[in-house]
């Protein structure tokens, strides 16, 4: 009995204190997703009720005691057509409705604030544009569309925030993205929902949705001294990328200023948009991503730069809007001026390991 009673006690007290039946709706998409969910619940209930009524009704009406002789019926084309068409119609409605939501979830708006997330066994590492790192936590402002660019360092993970009704597989070797706009301040669960090995169930964290002003304060308090793009600039210089990628007329590599978001024509004739995924591929596998007019001389950086490093480089290139020399201070929108000043003063030193922010 000794070991049963604590469990029983735990059970009762939990029941009394905390017994949620429905998750909070904390993002713009949540309500839309739930609307479809309740529509589905409704048609399920109706369907189930119909089936149960039929079974129970017929069982009573045509019980052997009451109805000793069965009447043989072949079938009924009319009835059968009815219960083919009605479910089909309902399912098609569900399909279209679902597809609309799906496209919304996986199409980030242009002005979304981008945060990088790296998944590895068994932790989440979020990298804010301002250079703030956090482990198993994500601080975000409410009311702002936020896009996550996700990548895994090892196996499949899945970034799941039930309160926002969003989830995206985090895949090794490729960026995926998802976006949401938190509406309610609060702390929510972050789960890894794809089985990823021993400590899969420990790969959880918290999403802190803050008021914008609180968020700014948090950014200041937890800055590592340099923005992500500045990390990238450091790396860019230390890998001697600027030996080829510079603004000189005889440069051996394409000029990267303003390259992000532009249409590129590749050596094989393809046209691509230079987004995050493309930039990552171009760094790790340059041979397949040669811009037209340039020789395929860039070495691969596969295995030499970590995913964190690639993210820093991508973020640097993303923010390259003017000439390299003028790029002393970076205009990453979310960093308040004093942080930038501080960052500027440390430029040129060896990058110091950034303190990880633990909530």
């Amino acid at each position, binding site marked *: 009995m000794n070991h049963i009673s604590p469990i029983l006690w735990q059970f009762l007290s939990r029941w009394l204190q905390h017994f949620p039946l429905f998750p909070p709706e904390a993002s713009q998409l949540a309500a839309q997703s739930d609307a479809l969910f309740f529509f589905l619940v409704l048609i399920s209930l109706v369907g189930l009720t119909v089936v149960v009524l039929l079974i129970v009704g017929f069982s009573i009406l045509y019980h052997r005691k009451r109805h000793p002789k069965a009447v043989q019926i072949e079938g009924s084309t009319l009835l059968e057509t009815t219960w083919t068409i009605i479910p089909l119609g309902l399912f098609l409605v569900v399909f279209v409705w679902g597809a609309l939501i799906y496209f919304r979830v996986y199409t980030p708006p242009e002005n979304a604030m981008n945060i990088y997330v790296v998944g590895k066994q068994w932790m989440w590492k979020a990298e804010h544009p301002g250079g703030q790192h956090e482990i198993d936590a994500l601080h975000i402002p409410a009311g702002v569309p936020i896009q996550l660019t996700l990548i895994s360092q090892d196996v499949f993970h899945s970034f799941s925030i039930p309160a926002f009704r969003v989830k995206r597989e985090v895949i090794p070797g490729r960026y995926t993205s998802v976006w949401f706009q938190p509406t309610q301040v609060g702390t929510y669960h972050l789960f890894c929902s794809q089985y990823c090995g021993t400590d899969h169930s420990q790969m959880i964290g918290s999403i802190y949705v803050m008021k914008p002003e609180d968020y700014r304060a948090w950014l200041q308090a937890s800055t590592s001294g340099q923005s992500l793009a500045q990390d990238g600039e450091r790396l860019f210089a230390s890998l001697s990328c600027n030996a080829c990628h510079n603004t000189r007329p005889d440069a051996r590599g394409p000029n990267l200023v303003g390259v992000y978001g532009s249409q590129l024509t590749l050596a094989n004739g393809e046209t691509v948009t230079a987004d995050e995924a493309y930039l990552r591929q171009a760094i*790790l596998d*340059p*041979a397949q991503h040669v811009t037209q007019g340039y020789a*395929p001389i860039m070495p691969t950086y*596969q295995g030499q730069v970590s995913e964190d490093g690639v993210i820093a480089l991508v973020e640097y290139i993303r923010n390259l809007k003017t000439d390299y020399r003028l790029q002393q201070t970076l205009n990453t929108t979310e960093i308040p001026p004093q942080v930038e000043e501080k960052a500027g003063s440390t430029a040129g030193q060896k990058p110091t390991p950034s303190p990880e922010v633990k909530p």
Partner: protein
Amino acid sequence: MSDSTTIAGGELAEAKEAMVGEHAAHPAYQRHHFESVAQQFDATNFAMWIFLLTEVMFFGGLFTSYLVMRNWYYSAFVEGSHHLSIFWGTTNTAVLITSSFTMAMGVWCAQTRRKAALVLCLSLTFFLGLVFLCIKGIEWHGEWVDQHVPGLRFSQADFINPALDQDIYKEYHDRPLTGGMASKTEEYFFLYFAMTGMHALHMVVGIGILVFMLFRATKGAYTDGHFTFVENFGLYWHFVDIIWIFLFPLLYLVSRHA
């Protein structure tokens, strides 16, 4: 159909005989649960076809993988395939087609009850099957020497610096692959070995059954009107041939000019 005659052999006659009554004497080779020899033939023949369907899907997974990977790592697949010998590939195709022909003739011999000819055809098929495997062995040995066996003995040197292998370089003038892509040639050779290996495994099984059939044919089996086994084995052998008919262009030929 002018080029084929409806069955003349005794099988149908015997089948009809078996139909006459429940207790009519069955041929010894009729299994107890079949109503007639014809039903037995039909059922086993159909079963063989269904089995071949599963084989199609088995190789289907490999072909799909090959297609996806080839699209991703096009240049690696092209230069990887340049290291295969079209001469041996063509020879092997011819050998296998010939063995298919001798097998088809074997079925004909069994149908028309020619024992000596059947034994000859089966021996030829067996021999050609062995020749195929030997040639395949020579090719695999070549790949071992050239360090193109993925996972066990692989070097990207030939692809980073194609001039190393002058014979192939003279013919194709391959451009050097950069590190990232050169490593993907291992992917090509992985699929090459997986596909030809699976195919060779089927050949080995086939040859094993051929030995068994040869042994029985010399004792007069299959030419007594009960040729189902030969016919069904023929289907299997032709199927293995068809797989090779697709492997050959995909692995050896299509990349020559790419």
